[in-house]
């Protein structure tokens, strides 16, 4: 089956990102496909490359980036939610006159339409939130 995933909360504060990650890994292990993982609300914070988590605990952002690279996952961060929360790629930073960008590898910024499309194209959409 094709799954789309919605992650509504940021890393560490809620378990949502962890549960979503483990679900995606399990789905891939079972031979299913992941159409898209969409990050909304504070979930956009899963896409910042500036986290420095403690060495003895999981690196949530990095493992999403790594999983995306390994399985060619489409990790999408909502542009509206990202702008509110200060998550930018180089383009967005330039477009909006900001002096830095912070998006992590493997993530891309796009519109809410990508979430709706993810729901249309997948067999199942699963929401992980707080």
């Amino acid at each position, binding site marked *: 089956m094709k799954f789309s995933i*919605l992650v509504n909360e940021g890393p560490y504060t809620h378990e949502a990102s962890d549960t979503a990650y483990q679900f995606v890994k399990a789905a891939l292990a079972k031979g299913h496909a992941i159409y898209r993982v969409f990050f909304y609300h504070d979930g956009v914070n899963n896409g910042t490359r500036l986290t420095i988590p403690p060495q003895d605990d999981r690196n949530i952002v990095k493992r999403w980036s790594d999983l995306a690279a390994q399985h060619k996952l489409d990790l999408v961060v909502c542009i*509206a939610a990202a702008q509110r929360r200060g998550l930018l790629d180089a383009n967005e930073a330039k477009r909006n006159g900001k002096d830095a960008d912070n998006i992590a590898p493997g993530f891309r910024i796009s519109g809410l339409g990508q979430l709706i499309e993810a729901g*249309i194209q997948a067999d199942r*959409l699963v929401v992980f939130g707080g």
Partner: protein
Amino acid sequence: MAEETEGGVAKKFLYVNRKAPYGTIYALESLEVVLIGAAFDQDVSLAFVGDGVYQLTKGQDTKGLEVKNFSPTFRALEDYDVTKLYVEQAALQARGLSEADLVVPVEVVSAERMAEIMEGQDVILSF
């Protein structure tokens, strides 16, 4: 279950709203998804359950908070062909509210009816 649209068979999308407005962003950002989603010609319904019914109350005046009042946006939903708004009757009653207190026309439904509506959906978005 699913209806034919130009682009193929439309899916039934349900947006479930359980949170009050302003205390958290979920109500506002959920509405933003509904507005963008309207362009995709799917079969859209909104469910207001528990504190979600507070999103629809009349008389929201946010000047003192200095935050945007987004309740007028619910009135614009009709222009986007989003007309299926279901409000849980028990949630209204528990909060001392009636349909007359709400800012848009809705269908007030029992828990059983709401359960049926939910069961028939293809994609359920919770926030």
